[in-house]
C-alpha cells in the first residue's frame, strides 16, 4: 500500500472508464461499461458536460454478484448484442471496472462474440477503474483508430492513390503495417533539446516514405490549397476543454495562422463524424492533450504522420504553429512544442530566483494544456514556469524542469518551492503557506464544483495578470 494513496481533502482525477466514454462520446458508437452500478452515474454527473442535452449510447452492464462469480459472460454478450440491434450504433466499445478485472474478464473474446452476434464492429478498451482518464481516453482513441478508422483510412488512401494512377496492389503494399514497422526503430529514444524523450526515426524510413510520396499525406493537395499545413486535432475532450467555445477558439487560433483543420477527435465542435475518415490525409497531427498521444503514435506508426503536442494559447500560439510547419516540412516526427519553447526561454531568462529561493511560478494539471499555458506565461511574463503533473502516461510530455507527483503530501512539497501556483481551486486546501494559488478550474479534477468560474483559456490566457 502506497502511503500517497491516502487522501485527506483533495479529490481524485476522472478515472479511465469515464475517459473512454468521454473520448468516444460524439463518434456515433455505443460504449458499455462492465460494472455493477455507479460508473455511469459518476461519469455523467461529474465527468460529462454533454449528458443532459446530447444523446450518446453509454451504458453499464449492471453486473451482479452471481454473474461476477460464475463468469456469466453470455449475459453480457446477449445484452449488448440485443441493445445494438435495437439502437444500430456505428461501433461498440467495451470497458471495465475493478470486479471484471479481478475475475479476469476476457474483453477481447466478449467483443468478438458480440461482433459475431450483431455484425457491428466491436472492440475492447482495457480499463479497470484504477487509472486516470488519460489512460482510458487515450486507449479508447487508439483502439477506435485501430478497429474502426483503419479500414476507412486505408480505403481513403487507396482511392487517392488510384486516382493518381497507383494500382491497388502497390497501394496496399504501401499501407502494410509491417512495411512501416520494419523501417521504424520503435520507441528508440533520443534526447531532445528540452531533455524530454523524442522517438527517433531511422533515416531510412524517411527516404522510403519519400519514395512513396504519392501516399504520404505531406504532399496531399498542397498545390490545391492555400493553407500552409493540414492537421488533425487529437485529444480534445470536455475533460480538458470544458468551456463550450474552447474547441472552436482553439480551431480559430490555428485557422488564423493559416493552419487548415481536417478533423477533430473527439469533441468535434459540430463536425460531421463521417469526415473523420479523411484524417489520414493530414500533414500533421496536433496533440492537444495527453489523451491524444496514443492515437498520434498509432497514426505515426501506421501512416507516418508526424505529430506536434501543444495548444495555441496566448504568446505560445505562434511558436506552436511554426512547429507544425516544421513537422510537416522537415519530416520531424514528434515535437513537444511547449517544452522547446519553455526551455529556449528559460535559458535566456535574466530573472533570478527570488530571495526565498522560490521559483516564481508553476502550473498544475494535464501536461499538454498546462505545458502550453506554461510556455505562454513564460514568454508573457519573462519568467521560467514549471509544470507539476499528477497524471499518468505523461512522462514523454514533460521537460527537465517539470515534476510528476502523486498524492497530497508530494503535491504540497512541490508547491512549497514556488511563489505562485496556477491550479484547480480544489488544490487550495493543500497549498502551503507562502505559496499563492491562482484559480484555474479543471473539469477532470473538480468536475462541476468550479465550472461556473471556467473561462475559455484561448480568450483569457492571462487571467492572473494583476496577481503574479
Amino acid at each position: 500500500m502506497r502511503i500517497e494513496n491516502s487522501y485527506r481533502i483533495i479529490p481524485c482525477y476522472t478515472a479511465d472508464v469515464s475517459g473512454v466514454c468521454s473520448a468516444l462520446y460524439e463518434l456515433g458508437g455505443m460504449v458499455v461499461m462492465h460494472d455493477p452500478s455507479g460508473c455511469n452515474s459518476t461519469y455523467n454527473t461529474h465527468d460529462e458536460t454533454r449528458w443532459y442535452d446530447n444523446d450518446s449510447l453509454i451504458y453499464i452492464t449492471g453486473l451482479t454478484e452471481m454473474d461476477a462469480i460464475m463468469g456469466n459472460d453470455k449475459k453480457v454478450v446477449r445484452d449488448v448484442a440485443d441493445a445494438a440491434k435495437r439502437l444500430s450504433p456505428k461501433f461498440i466499445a467495451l470497458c471495465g471496472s475493478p470486479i471484471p478485472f479481478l475475475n479476469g474478464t476476457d474483453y477481447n473474446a466478449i467483443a468478438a462474440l458480440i461482433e459475431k452476434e450483431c455484425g457491428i464492429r466491436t472492440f475492447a478498451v482495457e480499463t479497470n477503474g484504477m487509472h486516470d482518464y488519460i489512460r482510458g481516453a487515450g486507449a479508447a482513441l487508439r483502439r477506435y483508430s485501430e478497429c474502426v478508422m483503419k479500414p476507412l483510412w486505408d480505403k481513403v488512401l487507396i482511392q487517392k492513390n488510384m486516382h493518381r494512377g497507383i494500382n491497388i496492389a502497390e497501394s496496399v503494399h504501401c499501407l502494410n503495417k509491417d512495411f512501416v514497422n520494419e523501417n521504424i526503430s520503435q520507441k528508440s529514444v533520443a534526447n531532445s533539446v528540452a531533455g524530454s524523450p523524442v522517438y527517433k526515426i531511422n533515416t531510412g524510413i524517411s527516404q522510403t516514405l519519400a519514395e512513396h510520396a504519392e501516399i504520404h499525406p505531406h504532399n496531399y493537395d498542397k498545390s490545391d490549397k492555400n493553407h500552409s499545413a493540414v492537421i488533425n486535432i487529437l485529444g480534445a475532450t470536455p475533460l480538458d476543454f470544458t468551456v463550450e467555445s474552447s474547441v472552436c477558439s482553439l480551431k480559430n487560433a490555428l485557422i488564423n495562422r493559416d493552419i487548415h483543420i481536417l478533423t477533430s477527435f473527439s469533441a468535434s465542435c459540430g463536425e460531421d463524424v463521417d469526415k473523420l475518415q479523411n484524417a489520414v490525409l493530414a500533414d500533421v497531427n496536433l496533440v492537444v492533450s495527453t489523451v491524444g498521444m496514443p492515437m498520434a503514435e498509432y497514426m505515426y506508426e501506421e501512416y507516418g504522420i508526424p505529430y506536434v503536442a501543444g495548444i495555441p494559447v496566448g504568446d505560445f500560439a505562434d511558436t506552436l504553429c511554426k512547429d507544425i510547419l516544421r513537422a510537416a516540412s522537415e519530416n520531424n516526427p514528434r515535437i513537444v512544442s511547449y517544452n522547446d519553447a519553455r526551455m529556449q526561454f528559460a535559458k535566456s531568462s535574466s530573472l533570478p530566483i527570488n530571495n526565498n529561493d522560490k521559483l516564481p511560478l508553476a502550473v498544475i494539471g494535464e501536461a499538454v494544456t498546462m505545458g502550453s499555458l506554461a510556455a505562454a506565461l513564460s514568454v508573457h511574463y519573462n519568467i521560467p514556469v514549471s509544470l507539476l503533473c499528477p497524471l499518468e502516461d505523461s512522462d514523454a510530455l514533460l521537460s527537465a524542469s517539470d515534476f510528476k507527483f502523486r498524492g497530497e503530501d508530494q503535491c504540497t512539497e512541490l508547491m512549497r518551492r514556488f511563489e505562485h501556483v496556477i491550479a484547480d481551486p480544489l488544490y487550495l486546501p493543500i497549498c502551503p503557506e507562502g505559496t499563492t494559488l491562482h484559480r484555474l478550474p479543471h473539469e477532470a479534477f473538480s468536475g462541476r464544483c468550479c465550472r461556473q468560474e471556467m473561462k475559455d483559456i484561448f480568450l483569457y490566457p492571462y487571467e492572473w495578470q494583476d496577481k503574479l
Partner: protein
Amino acid sequence: MFSDNMNDKTLPTKEYSVSVRDAVFPKPFYQGLEFNAPAHGNWNIVHIGMLLPEARQIYVCADNCMRGVVLTAAEMNAEDRFSFVLLDEADMTVGNLEDVTIKGVAACIDKLDSHPPVILLFTVCVHHFLGCDLDYVYRKLGERYPDIFFARCYMDPLLQKTRPTPDQKLRLAMYEPLKALPVNKHTISLIGSELPLHKSSDLYKLIELVSGSRASNAIKLKEISSCTSYKEYLTMGESALFIADFPGALMGLEALGKRLERPYLYLPMSFSYDEIKGLWSSFAQALYSYCIKGSKANAKCTLPDHIQKLILTDIENQKALCENALSSLRSLIGDTEIRIDYVFHPRPLGLARLLLEHGFNVSTVYIDVISAEEEADLDWLKQNAPDMLLSSTVQVEARIRNRNRPDVLAIGQKAAWFSGTAHFVNAVYGAGLWGFDGILRLCELMEQAYREEKDTKDLITRKGWGCASCV
C-alpha cells in the same frame, strides 16, 4: 428470462414501456444494460452519511468509484469531512487487502488535526469479492484508535440486486454508535430520514393529540437531520420509541430497536386514506403506551376513549380537507397529462391510484422495480387503469426516447427529464409528505408546478435535493 413476445404476459418485457395490464410484479422490465438519466436529486450514501454530526467518512476503493463520492462531498461543501484510500492493482492482487485497508485508513486519520468521534468506513465490492476479513480490519482499527467509533458502511453495488443496498446498510450503520441510555418516555426518534419532518406533519399533530395540553406529557420527536452535534445525536439513545417512515430505513429501524431493546414502529408514507387511518391508530397507541404510560416494549395499552374520539374526528376533518384540495386541483389542471417517477416517492403507484381515483389524467409512472408495499396498488391499477404505462428509467431506449412534452405535469425529477417539461414537482424520497398533510401539501406542490415553470436542467442535475450545493 424476458419476453420478446408481447403476447407473453408472464415474463419481464424488454420494451421501454409496458401497460399496467401487462406489467409483471415485481420486475416488469428485463434487467439488461442500464442507462442513467441526468436527474440526480436522490441522496446517495455520502449525503446520507453526512447527516451524522461530526462524523468523518473514509472510503477505500478504486479511482472510478471514488470519483463519484469524493465529488459528492465537494459539491455539498463537505470535503473537509471526507477522506479516502485509492486501491490499485497491486493492492488487490497481493492478497493483503486487510493490511492495505488498515494502513490506508490509519494514514488518513493520522493526517487529521484531531480525531472525529465516529468514522463511517466504507469498504466496497472488491473487499467482498476478495473475501477481505472485515472483522479483523475493524478490530485492528478499533484497537489503534479507541477514541473513534468505526461504523461498518458499504459501497458494494455488486450485491444490491439480491441483498440489502448500500443505502439500506448505511441507514443501519449510522445508528450503531447509539447506546441504550435510560429511557426518557417523553422522547421518540425518527430513524433513517434525510430531511426533517415537516412541522405540519400528521405525526406532530398526533403527538400533540396524544400528549394533550399537560406540559408533563409533552413528547419530543428527535431526528438525526436536526441534531447539531454528536453529543446531541447520542441522546437519541434515550428514546422510548423509534419510528421510521421510509422503506429504506426499515432494516435499520428493526436492528436499532432490537439492539437497544426498545419498541419500534414502521409508519410508511402512504396515499391511501384507509392505510393512513390505520397508521394514525398504530402511532397514537404506541405513543400512549410508551410515552404516556411508560410501558415496556410490546406491552401496548388501549387508547382512552376521549383520545380515540379526537383522532376519529380529526381523521374525518383531514379527509374532507384532502377531498376539497384534490377537487380544486382537478378543476384547475383538468385533463393535463401527469407523469410520476419512483424517486419522487416510494409509493408512486399509490400516488397514481389516488390521483386516478380523483379524476386526474395520469398517463405514466417511471419505475423499474415495484415494491412489495405496492403490490395491492398494482392490482388496483390493473383493474381500473389498465392502459396506464409503466416506463423504465434504465432500459437502453430510455436514452433516445422523445423528450419533448412540455405540456406534461411531472411529479418528480426523472419524470420531468423524460418528459422534457418545465412544469414539475421538484422533490425526492417523499419530501416528508406524510399522511393527510402529505396529500394536502402535494396538492399545493402540483398547483405550483402547474402554474409556474422551473429551470429543469439547473434543478434536477444537482445532487442531493435539499442539500447544500456549490454547483
